[in-house]
Each structure stands twice: as C-alpha cells, then as structure tokens.
C-alpha cells in the first residue's frame, strides 16, 4: 500500500485485529463515529458495530479498569487515552491493578490488553497535549511499553501488542501521525522487545524512539554531509530495553547520544546511559550525551521547538562526544 500515514497504519492494524479475532474490542473517548480525535479509529465502529468499537464516558480510570474487566472475561481490549496527560487519571488502575493482576492471581488471569496513548509535542497545542509520559510507565514493573517511529512499525507493533498476553502501553508519536510510507499489509506482528538499527554508521550511535527517530535520522544525514558517520538505533521497546542491540552498536561506534522529548532528568536516557556506561565502561571513548527537554513543565507551544531535540542540538551533542 502506498503513502500510508502512521495514523492510517494504526487504523489498518486495528482493522485487521478486529477482523481476525472476534474477541478484540476497542473503546475510549470519541473513538466511535468521530474515529478519535486523530482518526486512528476511523470507520471501525461503522464496520464492526457498537459492541466491538464504542465510545465511553469521559473517565480514564474506568476506561483502564474496563479493559481489565473485559480482558478477564476473555476479550482483548484496546483502550484509547485521548492524549498523554489524560492518561494520568488511570495511573492507579494501570499501576496498582493492570500491572499486578497477573501476579495477584498467581498467573491465572492474563492482562491481554493494550492502552494506546498519543504522546509527545511539536503539534502547537495548548497545555497538557504534548507530554512524554514514558518514564511513568517504563518504571512500572508488569507493563510492556512500546512506541513505533514509522508506519510499518506502527502496524506491526500494534498487532504484536494486541496478540501479546500481557498489558502493553502503546505510545503513539502524535507529531508523526502524518508521516507517510509505502508499506506491505497484511504483515506479521513485530516482536515487542527488539530495538532496530535504522541507519548504520561508524562515529557515534544516536539512540532514539518514537518521534525523535526521524529527528535523529535527519541529524545523521546532516552529519554525513559534514563528514560524520552516525548510526541510528530505534528502541521500539522502552520496557524492556533491548540492551543487546544497543550495546552492539555502541561497542562499534564507542560514542553515543540518547535523544528524547521528555525532560532529561529521570528520562529514559538516564537508564540507557547508566546501563551502557556500566557495561561498556572500557569501550567508550567519551561519556554518553543526552538530549531532551529541560526540567520544566511542557512550555507554551510558541517555544516548544526551542526545548525539543532538533538536528542541531543532536549534532552539538555528537560533537561533544567526539571532541571529548
């Protein structure tokens, strides 16, 4: 299929999952005839009916809890949170129940459910619509957390998440919903725990995920024109981290920069840096750099580009590792 946007790829994955498994259901605010505020569920209610795809009242805690209850009843719920910050009301249900229910039932009950959360900034939005909540979820044991960076990955990862027997937080880089790619569908589900080298290089590794992968690739291109060869690794899975793939790349390049939109402080970069610098202490030529937001609430949109990673800031960080 040609020119498929990331949003459309997600829509196709939901469609194929709803079609191939009658136990898959999809719900959330405005996912019905509106098709969601980003149109990811466009046309699904019409095709599959109101018991497969349905609107809920405005209550994220109970959207999550509904997923728990329906999963227990043998459905495979896919719940949508409308925006990153609006997933916070569900925090207790996700952390204290969804992440712990398998344990709590001695393994008897699977939490085969997906919570989709559009996240990230760069869309010129008002407050609360641009957050990067991955730290909150990745730190919570009992959850799997993934995020795609391309339409093809979006399709494959979402299928993989729906088929996985465990609860998956599926973070959708909302600024990339409109990114286009030719993709083959139907395609098999992708594994949930694998990072991918999306560009090979020699001089340093850029580690990115979700919205920042394209930014990292742009930086790598720009770097190339300036004579720097940058490898780019797309995490795809934020929890667990695929440290083997990361370590293999950094073992080769001996320098790295981690790039995300979330504040650097306690961002995912902290864990990646801590592990890589620990495991590759003797291999690294320079300390690993992190590029992310400052320790501030997400700024007014007029200023967001000044705080989000861009190719220049990434290349400056690369320079720091190379000039070390």
């Amino acid at each position, binding site marked *: 299929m040609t020119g498929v946007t990331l949003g459309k790829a997600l829509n196709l994955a939901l469609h194929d999952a709803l079609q191939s498994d009658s136990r898959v259901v999809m719900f959330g605010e405005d996912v019905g005839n*509106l098709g969601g505020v980003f149109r990811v569920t466009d046309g699904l209610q019409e095709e599959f009916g109101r018991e497969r795809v349905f609107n809920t*009242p405005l209550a994220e805690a109970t959207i999550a809890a509904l997923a728990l209850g329906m999963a227990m009843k043998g459905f495979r719920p896919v719940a949508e949170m409308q925006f990153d910050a609006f997933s916070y009301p569900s925090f207790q249900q996700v952390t204290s129940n969804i992440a712990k229910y398998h344990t709590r039932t001695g393994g008897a009950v699977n939490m085969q459910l997906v919570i989709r959360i559009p996240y990230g900034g760069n869309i010129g939005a008002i407050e609360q619509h641009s957050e990067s909540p991955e730290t909150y979820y990745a730190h919570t044991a009992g959850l799997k957390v993934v995020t795609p960076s391309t339409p093809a990955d979006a399709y494959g990862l979402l299928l993989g998440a729906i088929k996985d027997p465990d609860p998956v937080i599926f973070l959708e880089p909302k600024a990339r919903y409109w990114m286009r790619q030719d993709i083959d569908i139907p395609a098999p589900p992708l594994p949930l725990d694998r990072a991918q080298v999306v560009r090979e290089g020699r001089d340093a590794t850029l580690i990115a995920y979700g919205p920042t992968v394209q930014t990292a690739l742009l930086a790598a291109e720009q770097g190339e024109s300036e004579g720097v060869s940058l490898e780019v690794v797309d995490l795809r899975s934020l929890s667990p981290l695929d440290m083997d793939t990361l370590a293999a790349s950094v073992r080769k390049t001996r320098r790295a920069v981690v790039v995300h939109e979330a504040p650097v402080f306690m961002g995912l970069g902290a864990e990646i840096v801590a592990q890589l610098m620990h495991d590759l202490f003797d291999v690294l030529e320079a300390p690993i750099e992190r590029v992310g937001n400052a320790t501030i609430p997400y700024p007014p949109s007029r200023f967001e580009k000044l705080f989000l990673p861009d190719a220049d800031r990434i290349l400056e960080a690369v320079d720091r590792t190379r000039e070390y």
Partner: protein
Amino acid sequence: MAKALHTHPQAREGDDNSIGSLVDAHGLLTPEAERDAAVSDDQLRELYRMMVICRRLDQEGLNLQRQGELGLWGPYVGHEAAQVGAALAMESTDWIFPYYRDFAMAVCRGIDPGNILTIFRGLTHGAWNPYEYRFAPFIIPVGTQVPHAVGFAVGCKFDHEQTAVLVGFGEGATSTGDWHEAMNFAGVFQAPVVFLCENNQWAISVPVEEQIAGRIVDRAAGYGFPGVRVDGTDVLTVYAVVRAAAQHARQGHGPVLVESVAYRLQAHTTSDDPTRYRTDADLDPWKGSDKDPIERCAERLRQRNAYDDTFAVAVAQEAEERASAMRQTLVAARPPHPESVFDLVFANPPASLMRERDEFTSSLEQGGAE
C-alpha cells in the same frame, strides 16, 4: 424508605427546596420567583449587553483562528446565558473557577479578552493573575478544577468569609472521579460552592446519552444538597438561580448544584469536525430564536419595554469595538522571553534549574534561534 437506618442527620434535598422551587417543569423561573428576584431593567440590559459582546468576541476568536492568528479556538456560542448569567450573579468578592470554555465568564470578570487569547496563540499557559480578578485559570484536564473550587471554598469557610465559589464544567466532566469526589467533599464540609454544569449535550463527539446514566441534577440529592435544572438559554433564569444558590452558599447552607441545559451549537473546537457525528437536523431544535439566549433576553426586555433600537445598536457597536480591540491586543502581544519559562516553574527555584536556564540562554544566544 429505610429512614430508621439513617444514622446521621444530614441535609437532604427537600429540606431546603427553596432553590429547586424557583423554576418550573421547563427549567424556567416561575412568575413568582421572577417577582421575588426583582431583577431590574438595568440588570437585565446588562445581561443582554454582556451576552452580545461575548458572542461577538466568540465570533472574532473563530475569525482569528481561521486567519492563523490562533492555534485553537473553542467556541461557546449557545453558552452565553449560562456563562454571563452565572458570572454576573456572583458578587465581586466571590470567586470563580472556570473550565476551558468559560471565556465569557472571564470577560464578565473584567479580564482583557485580547490577553486571554494569548493562551490560544501559544504564548502562555495562563494570562491573568487569579487574585486580581478572583478568577482561577482555565483548566484543561476535564473535571480537575472542581475539587480546587471546593478546597478554596473550604478555606473561605474556615476564614469566616461571606464568599461563595462558582465552579464551571461541562456535562462530560460529571463522568470524572474528581467531580464526584468534589461533590462529596463539598457536602461533607458544607463548603460554599455553586456547581454549575454547562450541559451542552456533547463532549466532543460523545452525546449526553452515551455519557451519563440518569440525570445530572438528580445526583445532588445523593450528596445531601439541592440540585436544580435550569433552561440554559434563558439568562434571567440562570442569573436568578445562581444568585440564589450563591446566597445560599454564602449564608452557610452548603453547596448547590445547578445544571444548565443548552446546546453546543458549534464544533467542540476548531480542531473538531462535527459533521462526522451529528447532522444539521440534530441542531434544528436548538436554532430557533426561542432557544437563542440573546433573542430570548431581547424578548424579555421588550416585554418590559426596556429594549429599543438605540440600545441594541449601541450594544452592537460596543461589541464591534471590543472585538477589534481584542484583535489588536492579541496581535500586538509580545511573546515573553523564552527563558521566562524557567522562571515560572517555582517561586523559589533551585540552583540547578537556574543553571539549566543559563545554559539555555547562552545556547539561544549562540544559536541565534528566534
């Protein structure tokens, strides 16, 4: 039923039904209540005036968004009676905790509308000092401002003030846990709060029947305080009922829930496409002049012989002027320095944040960005 089991005496709906009895089965002020309310012609004209101005500002907001001057606009046409009626019903010493759509309330409180718009232009997250206007910031996470108002009102009570607190929210907000917790706290603490539900029958694309089980107004009884459902297109009713509710609260009789029923005539926001979920026919019952807050108010004024062309033209002209002043203020608004973002995080910022700020500033200077 089961009254004998009732282990603690508490106010129940019916104990004080004076507020509920202000309106008839259609949610309109009864003739008797209208007489008692004694709203003067001048007051009614003031309500009319503010509704006309606010509708014009709403239109201008939409224009500005279409012209690329705003990132987003959330129209409130259809809400004029609720917002203007409620805001003007409160004393200037009272407080208002708005939700994101309560633009007209902010205008009634005297906040410069051009400044408010800087929020929707992406320049700031908040454009006024709440203490200056006794008007809290717009809150985006639905329902979360409701318990803020309760906390503030508990404070007013502990300070033995004669202050009432109005909190605005949509019918979708009543689905949130925060709303319920706030209702219960207000009842337990007998906080002086007026809960104003602006039931416009849609939460983005979700119609009220997919949103709410039962009726919102009926929930007040479950918290032991009065609830009243008013026709949200009649400003006189909203004004009189909210004024009575605020008085009730101020006098220490506890909270009141007012459900104002009207209709969201426009898209949820300019990002929304309502053609995907409702038809023109859905709107038809709400488009007539009998449902238009401004027309209805004009009609009431005419019945009082308090409306004439001179008045109407003067108001319309003032609305024009204020709309163009709003536009001018907006486009002239200078964005704050980006570094100011760091200064607003804390009242007492840690050194590490100030270091981040300095690095940011020097990288801006180097990069020459913006």
